[in-house]
């Protein structure tokens, strides 16, 4: 971050009890920055170096003040948070926590596992399968694009050269993939065949074991 020092030093309010000599705090225009507040409130060491003076204990009262929601159904967050930021109503936070935990009920730890997540991909009518690393993508759209490119060389419609041409055209494949003829499905950790797209992307990546792009007629009863 560019170190911009504006001339605010004269008027700069230093944090500290009366009588204390001025402390070396980080160049965040002298005011209490976000990261400092997080540190002070959690008594963690800051990722952004800068030793906050240990005598800088103004806010010792705040050390235990990290509260997220008072609602018991809320899962604790993965990383440190300042109270009340971002400013979202507790009601909304609670709803989102329930929605997330509802879909995450099978998961164990927070935080994605390292490494790749290769899964086999089969498309009905294609002569062979492929493998993709789900961690390479951030959204369903990206995956869909990638699969389209991967399978664009196969003839999947009612034969003929026109059909082949259509398949070179990946947007047509996308329409098919998104349309009613083909249905993307996956096998999850439990061995169940699920419709792609219902759960948040991250959850999908964690639980997907293999992908199968089915012909629509065979997909009835899913989802």
């Amino acid at each position, binding site marked *: 971050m560019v170190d911009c020092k504006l001339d605010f030093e004269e008027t700069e*309010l230093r944090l500290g009890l009366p009588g204390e000599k001025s402390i070396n705090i980080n160049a965040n225009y002298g*005011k*209490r920055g976000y990261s400092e507040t997080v540190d002070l409130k959690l008594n963690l060491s800051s990722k952004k170096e800068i030793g906050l003076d240990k005598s800088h204990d103004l806010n010792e*009262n*705040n050390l235990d003040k990290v509260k997220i929601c008072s*609602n018991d159904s809320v899962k604790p967050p993965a990383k440190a948070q300042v109270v009340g930021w971002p400013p979202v109503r507790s009601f*909304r936070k609670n709803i989102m926590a329930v929605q997330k935990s509802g879909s995450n009920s099978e998961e164990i730890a927070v935080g994605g596992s390292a490494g790749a997540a290769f899964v086999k991909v089969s498309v009905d009518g294609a002569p062979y399968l492929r493998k993709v690393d789900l961690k390479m993508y951030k959204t369903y759209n990206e995956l869909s694009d990638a699969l389209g490119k991967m399978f664009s060389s196969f003839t999947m419609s009612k034969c003929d050269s026109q059909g082949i041409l259509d398949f070179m055209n990946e947007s047509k494949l996308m329409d098919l993939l998104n349309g009613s003829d083909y249905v993307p499905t996956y096998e999850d950790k439990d061995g169940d065949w699920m419709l792609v797209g219902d759960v948040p992307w991250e959850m999908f990546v964690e639980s997907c074991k293999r992908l199968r792009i089915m012909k629509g007629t065979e997909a*009835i009863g899913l989802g």
Partner: protein
Amino acid sequence: MCLFQCMMNYFPEEVLDHVFDFLSSHRDRNAVSLVCKSWYSVERFSREKVFIGNCYAVNPERVLARFPRIRSLTLKGKPHFADFNLVPHDWGGHVYPWIEAMAKNGINLEELRLKRMVVSDESLELLAKSFPNFKSLVLVSCEGFTTDGLAAIASNCRYLRELDLQENDVDDRKGQWLSCFPESCTSLVSLNFACLKGEVNMAALERLVARCRNLRSLRLNHAVPLDSLQKILVQAPQLTDLGTGSYVHEPDSETYIKLKNAIQKCTSIRSLSGFLDVHVQCLPAIYPICTNLTSLNLSYAPGIYSNELMKLISHCMKIERLWILDTIGDTGLGVVASTCKELQELRVFPSDLYGVGNAAVTEEGLVAISAGCPKLNSILYFCQQMTNAALITVAKNCPNFIRFRLCTLNPTIPDAVTNLPLDEGFGAIVKSCKGLKRLSVSGLLTDQVFLYIGMYAEHLEMLSIAFAGDSDKGMLYVLNGCKKLKKLEIRDSPFGNVALLADIGKYETMRSLWMSSCEVTYGACKSLAEKMPRLNVEIINEGDQIEASPDARQRVEKMYLYRTLVGPRRDAPDYVWTL
């Protein structure tokens, strides 16, 4: 003016009364009542709707003494930052004394609207039993009651037209509150129980809807499944406002087909919300009504991704109010910009509060909206990053903002391109938007932004500040410049005693001031309280930071001050000190 007054005095009071009937805005009525004693007198007897922005600014006795014919009361309780857990639960804001006083005085109460108040079951029971003509109950962000209280309302309010529960924290008692509406109840026009967590009896709900032929607004909760929605819509094609419950079903099923048909007949629906649980494959059922929608709230709908959102929105050409999650992305906002030319209010909420996640909107989306939607006047925008250039462009494109609330997920993030503070960007907004009434700032900000705000934001009434500014100068610019300021709330900013005490008379022109994690000290607060008897200066002293005889130089963690006619409140908990 004198001649006019004389002429007006020739008219019997009945005429004045009739003229005042045309005044619905409480501000107009307040102005009228200041003209002269006779107008004050006529006005006070004719006022039926009373709005009280801070329930502790006045007490029930005084309100009823002045407005004996009151039929509708609106009350707001806790300070706004209570929404973000900055105010302890039992701080106050109880409605019971108000209901009790109105019951005792034989008030013919018909409507009660509460925001951020504590509402006990006891209050609801008293309400239900004391006012035979009671018609409308609207509770927003309230707490303290259970479904038992709702049962009392349902059972006793024979002419109930409106029961509107928005984002309340309600304890579900697994009773059958909805079944308590008697068979004779046919008066409901609006029923919103979307915030309730528990089940309701589906058969009772369906029968209720069937017999309330005037029902216009219905918002269901998560427990109402899609097949019940379908049956309800068949009974109520006249709805203008629908909140779906759980919107999950197999798209190939007969139920879904029936739903599609039922929805198509609901040609009056203008407002749509809910989708508390959603199966995106079922969304196409609503496309036919999208063309008529003026209001759409998908901010509680998990798992509708950008693609689906864009498809949906491309049908919504008449949308005026849109609330969505940031999963829409900048691209999605581009689609909104090119489709929704009638858009007036946009709210983009964060979808990922807990993890690292890909926060999906940036300054690009905001710029696109500002360029495409000429009628935009109100925005709440949670974003990953922002730039001055973008804000300057937005200011140029949209000079009509009344409400502008920007929230960067990292509260002190600088301009994403230049790394400078966002002072210039917000400066451009206040300079351009001459009618701006509400502003929330975020990102890296120095005193400079407050200089701009003080200079240009002449009509600003509410300002929210967090992690901003460098010195007392910042706060002083605002207090000196914003003549119409009513509510100022500040957290985690280096404003202290000099700013607080510079113009203490100013606080009597405002509703309230909140300062938390700032630099004000106990001594300064005490001094302010002593000089201004018509202010309540409250210190929220959680965790006993301040001992019994506190040092004047000790910093105060949370201070809330507000003007009042009735002195310190008597219902404050132990840790709230009114100085």
